[in-house]
């Protein structure tokens, strides 16, 4: 079965952020258009599906990590495999916003790359009345890091697709730059070959 489907490029996205900010909710909303009301702490969930990114079929692999500190030690391993990061905090919880700093640092340390694809996500934007983190602060921080900042709501699906797609675009751009001339023609060849065989 698998050989028949083309092997589209795979973008590995990792959800990071404190516990309870809605990483899993965002993931599930993106994956299955489903909003989970009840809260069950995640350990480490894996999701992967095909999506069409700007007319090109790609695969997105989402690693939904644990926000709880208990799992902090194993994060390094997860982060290593990630190509792009959605750093999520809850706009109703300033601690979670503070924590993004640590996550960012850990990611940069593990990846050793200042310009790793990264989106700062302020979730729970539907709870405007309970907002604790001002948009300005978040934007300032994002500007400081040189990353985009998007406010989302897993409940209303606001900007959910946007953050994932934006991040994937960045990952793609990044790969194109990195892969340079080597990868690109290779892929083309493969694709052509495969197409031929299908025909």
């Amino acid at each position, binding site marked *: 079965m698998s050989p028949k489907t083309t092997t589209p490029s795979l973008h590995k996205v990792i959800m990071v952020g404190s516990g309870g900010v809605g990483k899993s909710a965002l993931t599930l909303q993106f*994956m299955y258009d489903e909003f989970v009301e009840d809260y069950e702490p995640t350990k480490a969930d894996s999701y992967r599906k095909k999506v069409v990114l700007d007319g090109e079929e790609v695969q997105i692999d989402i690693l939904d990590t644990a926000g709880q500190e208990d799992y902090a030690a194993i994060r390094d391993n997860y982060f290593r495999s990630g190509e792009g990061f959605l750093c999520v905090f809850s706009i109703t919880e300033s601690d979670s916003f503070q924590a993004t700093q640590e996550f960012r640092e850990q990611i940069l340390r593990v990846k050793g790359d200042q310009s790793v694809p990264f989106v700062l996500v302020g979730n729970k934007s539907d709870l405007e009345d309970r907002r604790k983190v001002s948009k300005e602060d978040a934007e300032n921080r994002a500007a400081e890091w040189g990353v985009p900042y998007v406010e989302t709501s897993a409940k209303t699906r606001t900007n959910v697709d946007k953050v994932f797609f934006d991040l994937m675009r960045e990952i793609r751009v990044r790969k194109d730059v990195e892969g340079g001339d080597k990868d690109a023609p290779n892929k083309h060849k493969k694709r052509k070959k495969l197409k031929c065989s299908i025909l």
Partner: protein
Amino acid sequence: MSGAPLVTGMSPKEGPPGTKVTIRGERLGKSQSDLIGLDICGVNCLLTSEWVSPNKILARTLLCKTKGDIVVITRSGGVGASTVQFRGYLEASVGPTKESPVWVDETVSVGPRPLSMTAYQQEDPLQISVEGNDKKFPVEELLELFPEGSGNLRSENFVPAWFLLENHHATSFDDLKLGLNFLGRKVGSQTEGKLSFLKENISSVIDQLDALIALKEKCDKYRTKHGSSFVAQIDDAIGVSEREAGKLFQGVLAKKDRADMTRNALNGYQRFKFLFSLPGTMEKSIQKEEFDQAINDYSRAKALFEQPETDKPIFRKFQKEVETRAYKLRETLRNKLVEKPPKIEEQRAILDYLMTLQCDYDPAWVCLACHFEFLTNSMKNCFQQFSSMDSQNANTAKTPSKQDHQNALPNQVVFVENLCELFSTYFPDFWHLSQDYFGGKLPVKPNLSKQAEMKKMMISTVQLFGTLVTSCLLPSGSANTDEFEWQEKASESMSEWLQHCLGFIKDTYTDFLSLDPPKEMIEILRNLLFQIRCYSLEIMLHQLSTEVADLYKQETWSSEPMGDHGFVTPLPAKFETVIINASKVIKETLLQKYNEERPLLNNEEVKNRMREGMGNALSAFADSLELLISQNRGVSQFHSSQKSSMTLPLKDGGLRSGLPTSQTASLLLILNNCSYTKVVILPQIYKALVKLGYPDMSEAVEKARIAINGVENLTFAKYTEMKYEPVVGQIEQSMNAGRFDWEKCGEPVGVRPYITKTILGMIEVIAEVTAVSEKLVTTVMTQVIESVCEELTRLFSCIAKFSENGAMQATLDMAAFQDAVSGFLVGNSINLVNETFSLIPRSKEMLRSSRRIQHLLDEHRSKTKMQYQCLISSNTTKL
């Protein structure tokens, strides 16, 4: 194809057997019954699966040991695929009471680690509250009651009665019954639970049974093949593998040990890294003069070196290094202290450093001693520099900054200036430092026994200052300055700089006082000031004398009537001004009380000296006047050609200006000045001095008066001499005019012209004197007339013989003379006149009897009426 299930999400993506997972995806079946297969990592988990929706299945993983796909098989869609994987792993620790449906490697979890019993003992099987069980049932009794038993739930010889007695001997029966009920329920549920657990995991259990059966079969087969010894073989094999494992383990252990050692060493290095680089950093800090840094580092290092861990040769080595650096630093700091005393704050900082460096001496004391030495040396050097400098190279050797200013100054002044500056700059620091030292304000513990020495040092410093200044300014001999001899002694011009110097010293003194030093030290400076002031007083008075003595140069001979004193030149007034101004200056600079200085005038000796000086100054005026007289002579000689035409100007009420009108006139002016000075100026000066607060100066004034009297007398003598000389001189000449012979002359026809000439001459004198001072007329005339009388007497006594006519003539002449000057005849002159008469034979009878003489006398009288009038009136006015 498109209907095949597709798993796209796994939550969680890994876990031990029995993990509850959520499987998400597409087309995962239409119902529970549609779901006909679920493999996780190749293990069929269908039994545990629970279909929720076509997108979601819940399941429990079984013995999945590797990473693998999740394959969902549905009746409607067939065999599915997954984009995600699950990784199964075995949980390391499965306790003996933890239910696990899979094989567990018990050697790891059960083997070496004994389970703590306490954890189980805490649980009371009856679940009865143990509150109120304070009273323990004695253990000895229990041992007696149940010698073979035990209260431990886990032990084989467990005796329930023991347990009950031990734990619940105070519990009521009802409670115990309730407990029993609970226990019963619990046991029931456990068996029930076991059953359900078996049911849940039936496939595992069956697998396990299968495995056991297979094992048994294999064992049986083996036994039949190899006999019963196979256990021994296995045992051997186990033994071999154990040894091998042991070796491996040892190897690993050794490696681990080495790794640990390396790590420890690295840690140690990290920890003491600072120590190893310390010598270098200290050196650098010292070079950069960042002593703070160096010393901090050093103290830190010291603290570290004191720890037991650092008692190792390598650390000792570094400690040695560090100590040498610290020693060097100490030396550097010490040198810094000694070199040239820095600012007091800096000093303090350095002392602080030295104390933290724990130097073995008292740095503050060293510092003080150095300061002392520095101060002393620099003062001495200053002295040497300037004292050995002669005036030629003085200008070049001076500091360039002050050159312009100092060029004009004599060496001594520059020296005093520099010395004062030195003293005022460094002494206060020295003083403060010592105060702080003994006051305990320094980080150093003061050594109080050194106080006396300190005091000695202080005093010697101050004394040195005094000695140097003294030897520079005061004439040698006034102080015992064997050690310091100023090469070039004060020149004349120095005296005017004394004030300047005094100012500096006073400033220094004020600065010094502000330090609030002990009395002895103040006394030294006070003495110094006193001496200098005395000296400068003397110098000033001397200068004053010179100035006064030089006053004559300013005589302009323009005169002005001054009341009774006749015409007076401005000279006495100038004299007064000079004296009073100088007195004021002296008072201001020397006599005024200044900042606890000793008042000069309290000293009797000084008073005397001052009187003397003032007397000299005052009498110098007399010298000045005297000089005028002698000077006048020259002038008059120069004017001698005009002398005849220079008649005395009449008073026109105003100033008579010009050079000495004539010698005689100026003499008269001098006379007037004398008396004016005596009568008016001196008392005025006296009063002024008293007003200025000078001590009684009557002696000085008296001295001046005497001196002036002398001058007056001298002048007077000069004057009269000058006056009567021409008058007297012409007498003989005109007496013998025309070869007049007293023996052969004819009968007298009138008074002979020598008498009339004499009288006219006298009148001239009167006129001149009167013009200057009427007062003097009598005195002058008496003198003049006495001289004239003397001359007449002399002349007549020379005449050998008188004829009758000659005697008559002589008598007539003398009578006319006597008549004319009768007003001025006193004492000696009367005698002389009488003597003259007696020289003339029969003069008395003739005077009485001869009509002719009477007649001629009357005639003469009427002829010279105006002249008589002159003589008489001038005389009577005086009387």
